[in-house]
């Protein structure tokens, strides 16, 4: 289990150019989340690269405390 605040702060630390990080617990069990990130760092990057940036922030909990993660990655213009 991992708190949405925890997810949020990790992403903000890894992506200082993020203007929005929305975290939604989809099952109420604090281990399945939907995350929407808007960040300048995504500009010019493919979806795979964008997702890798977010995964890097959550590497140690993915598959453990964090069972499922759905990502939406957008640049400020999108």
């Amino acid at each position: 289990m991992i708190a949405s605040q925890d997810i949020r702060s990790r992403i903000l630390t890894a992506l200082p150019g993020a203007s929005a990080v929305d975290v939604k617990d989809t099952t109420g069990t604090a281990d399945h989340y939907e995350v929407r990130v808007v960040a300048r760092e995504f500009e010019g990057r493919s979806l795979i690269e964008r997702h890798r940036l977010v995964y890097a922030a959550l590497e140690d909990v993915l598959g453990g405390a964090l069972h499922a993660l759905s990502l939406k990655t957008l640049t400020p213009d999108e």
Partner: protein
Amino acid sequence: MNRSVVDEIKKEIDENPVLVYMKGTKDAPQCGFSAAVIQVLDSYGVALKDVNVLADPEKWAAVKTYSQWPTIPQIYIGGKFVGGCDIVREMHAKGEIAPLIEQAFSAKR
């Protein structure tokens, strides 16, 4: 065991135009994301190779390292890593999967 899991993975990627490393099988997916991916790819009506990582923990660990991607499902089309469920769904909605699949199958002929 003298198994080279990485060689197995390379072979799977090379031999299958559409390949999904997933939880469960394409006829019986065991996770929502894996099921969603199969649904999307099935809509193209082409041959799909599924590899159940739940049945093979060694391969599961190896595939995460090989793709440098920490989650399952993982989708390869035409020998190239396309991404996970979210990416495939987004690309499908934008019509970006069809050309990849077409290319993958024409390359095999």
